[in-house]
């Protein structure tokens, strides 16, 4: 029993981290904020690297790996603030032509009636008729609202887990950013990270992140609905509260548009509303208690 990623899984994670650092680093991120739009060349490059086809069987042209690998890939996407309807395209890899290779961008109508990246997508799953754009809080996630969303049934647990993995990536990244800043920024003659008040904020960020990591990785192994709902709640909390704490550690600079921190917080908010939001997961886990599934 070892919940940690294997050597192969770590190699996959590292290669994706390098690809994203090269293709979607700080400069590309700023450019994306200044001029929203999906980078189709990057999307195809991700397809070529197997990002969307990780779980597709090799016989169908996929990579033939499992949920753990997909979770690690989405964690990296979350870290890098990679924009686009990643989970919807990944889930469509076996059914929508071109999704696996990154040629076709697929989005989906969420149960809550929101659609991400509608204009930039080639295929929409679900009924998006009458969708109207809204002024999205996240500059890197264009949103439409469907006026009367059809009942779409319970959310796909895999989509919930991949979202949790993105949140985990955010949680880990904002903890790193906060620690870097707390080491470098000096006030009262010492790095602010030497002050307990700041140090303890950072420690709490790490505790939330590592607890969420154990929950997300375990859910990737068991794929059980209750484990996935738990992973989602823990990862949402780690990303949301972590981003706020990171902003706090950055002080005035954290409140500026120029800083990267607000982008993490806003994306974490967008993700926390997917698939019925946290309420759905809390209710599922409450029902699980009386079902005696323990």
């Amino acid at each position: 029993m070892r919940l940690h990623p294997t050597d192969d899984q770590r190699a996959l994670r590292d290669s994706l981290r390098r690809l994203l650092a090269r293709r979607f680093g700080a400069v590309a991120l700023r450019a994306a904020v200044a001029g929203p739009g999906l980078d189709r060349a990057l999307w195809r490059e991700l397809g070529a690297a197997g990002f969307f086809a990780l779980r597709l069987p090799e016989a169908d042209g996929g990579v033939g790996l499992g949920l753990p690998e997909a979770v690690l890939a989405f964690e990296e996407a979350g870290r890098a603030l990679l924009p686009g309807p990643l989970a919807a395209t990944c889930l469509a890899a076996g059914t929508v032509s071109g999704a696996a290779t990154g040629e076709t961008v697929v989005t989906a109508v969420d149960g809550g009636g929101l659609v991400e990246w509608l204009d930039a997508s080639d295929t929409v799953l679900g009924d998006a008729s009458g969708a109207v754009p809204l002024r999205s809080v996240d500059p890197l996630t264009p949103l439409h609202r469907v006026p009367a969303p059809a009942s779409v049934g319970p959310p796909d647990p895999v989509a919930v887990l991949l979202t949790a993995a993105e949140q985990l990536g955010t949680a880990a990244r904002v903890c790193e950013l906060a620690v870097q800043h707390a080491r470098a920024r000096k006030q009262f003659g010492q790095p602010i990270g030497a002050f307990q008040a700041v140090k303890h904020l950072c420690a709490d960020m790490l505790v939330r992140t590592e607890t969420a990591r154990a929950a997300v990785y375990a859910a990737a192994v068991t794929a059980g609905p209750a484990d996935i709902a738990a992973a989602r709640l823990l990862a949402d909390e780690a990303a949301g509260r972590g981003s706020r704490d990171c902003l706090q550690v950055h002080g005035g600079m954290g409140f500026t548009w120029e800083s990267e921190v607000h982008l993490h917080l806003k994306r974490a908010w967008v993700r926390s509303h997917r698939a019925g939001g946290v309420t759905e997961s809390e209710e599922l886990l409450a029902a699980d208690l009386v079902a005696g599934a323990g």
Partner: protein
Amino acid sequence: MDLTYTPQEEDFRARLREWLAEVLPTLPPKPSPDDWPARRAYDLGWQRALHDAGYAGVHWDASPTTRLIFWEETERAGAPYVGANFVGLLHAGPTIATEGTPAQRERWLPPILRGEEVWCQGFSEPEAGSDLASLRTRARRDGDHYVVSGSKLWTSHAEVADWCELLVRTDSAAPRHRGITWLAMPMDAPGVTVRPLRTLAGSAEFAEMFLDEVRVPVADRVGAENDGWRVTMVTLSFERGTAFAGEVVACRRVLGELAREARAGGRWDDPALRRRLGRLNAEFRALWRLVQWNAGETETAGGGVPGVAGSVFKLRYSHARQELYDTAAAVLGPDCLDLDRPWVLDRLSSLSYTIAAGTSQIQRTIVGERVLGLPKGR
């Protein structure tokens, strides 16, 4: 990422489960919490049963995953807790096993494993709590003895212990961490006075201990003189990684009981309470995964000290436990003020979790400095 157990581990679990099913019905009834001699006899009797069945040293020589299975299965089966054997099995024993001479190991370890002798821990002092290295209890050499004077605090099971693992200052001129020595002190030595302390939960779970010119043979020192800090740290976080596995299992059981109580009492219709219970389900599922994560980590680190991962776990778990029993109070409503209702005493006891064995504030500093590499400050 792998959550499967090896065939050997599954075999261990199956045999343990079978044995527990046989032995637990034969145990005497649990003694009253206020009857210390009876509690000592009960706890030692359980350790003796473990010893005779071949499980005596599972905390020491088994792999972390095997230990996790041991805690999980004994809790599920409702077996007795480690109780008065805690210090012997989980701290003093491993310390002697690691740092003691062959003669010391031969003298002290078998009685711990056979359930014959109880140990307590004399570390904290009135002026040395979180700042343990500032301890002042002094020991001066007098021939082949140390003569010890001072006072110790929060000494669990002191009333019924045979031995005390004692930290004393042997060099007051040295830097504070370097003048400390580890001694094994017999509790019946002249000059040892124990005074029970009542906790806020009303019970006498620990004591203060006064030492007045107590003579301890030099031969009962473990490790070198003035090397006691290092000797202690080798095993201080020995069990952080998996020792709470049983408690997490127990908390998950309580959570299920709370949900059923809420349903029976009508409070289940309150969505805020229901979701709070759902969130706790997520919390304790995650904590269980964190225990498994830590076991796997220790496994591959060669059975090393799970100190850092232990701090992350302890911070999260101690707060989760308090939230669990606060939620129990919400389920009980005004009945949460009745000490005879279930969970009410547990709620009081849970208040110690963010204090004992390193306060949450100290743990955050450890995480900040040792894991995140933040600079030390004042």
